[in-house]
């Protein structure tokens, strides 16, 4: 191998590791918004990148931490939305049916692929 070959190999490794590093550490950039709807009407939109707690009509308590939204408290008996996994990707939603509260992510990260068919 010539000297130039080694330089190219080194450059490729540096670029690849830079991208991998960026991919792992640049995560949770928290793009996008949490949109809250109550009874079909928009209650408000909140940016995912700011940590905050949102009180929705005294019935539900929504928290935004690390670029993901999670329902902390709900007045309903079944607590389905409270047990729901936190959401951060486009199109994901948490729905509290008794209180007619719908929380969804807009303009967020693209959802991960479930599978690829060849």
């Amino acid at each position, binding site marked *: 191998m*010539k000297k130039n*070959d080694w330089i*190219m190999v080194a450059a490729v490794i540096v670029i*690849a*590791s830079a*991208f991998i590093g960026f*991919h792992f550490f640049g995560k949770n950039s928290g793009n996008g918004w949490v949109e809250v709807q109550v009874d079909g009407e928009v209650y408000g939109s909140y940016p995912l990148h700011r940590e905050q707690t949102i009180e929705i009509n005294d019935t539900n308590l929504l928290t935004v931490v690390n670029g993901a939204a999670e329902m902390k408290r709900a007045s309903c008996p079944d607590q389905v939305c409270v047990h729901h996994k936190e959401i951060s990707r486009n199109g994901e939603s948490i729905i509290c049916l008794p209180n007619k509260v719908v929380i969804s992510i807009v303009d967020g990260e*693209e959802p991960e692929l479930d599978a690829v068919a*060849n």
Partner: protein
Amino acid sequence: MKNKAAYFGVFTALALIFSYVEMLIPIQFGIPGIKLGLANLLIVIFLYKRNAIEALLLSVVRIVLAGFMFTNLFSILYSLAGGILSLAVMALLKNRGTFSVMGVSIAGGISHNMGQLVVAMLVVETYRVGYYFPVLLIAGMLTGMVIGVAANEVLKRLHNVVFY
């Protein structure tokens, strides 16, 4: 040379056999879409023993034929993008003369993957495939190295042999 077409046919057949042999290799590399690119060994050798135009012709004929026989139309599209881009890069680096067979082959492997990634981005219409970039970069380099070592050895031994 009057036997040119016949010789070219023989090399096309050889390239197709390489494609077929590669398909038979049961080893999966754990990452979808990564394969050795055995047929590119022939393309690299052809690039050195003949010239870029004929290597391109061989590459395109090989991809289209192997594509129709073993895979589908979409694979042909991906392979063509990768094949043409990698050949262009390899021809460029070879003519510059500052890289050895290894370097040219590595650049070919990488650009092959990059061409396919670009097509994937256009087809899926999302840039999120970009996270695959570093994986393909490293994979292209490794397969390029393997092909480079093999091509280097073959070229050393074929030093006095003239391809038609």
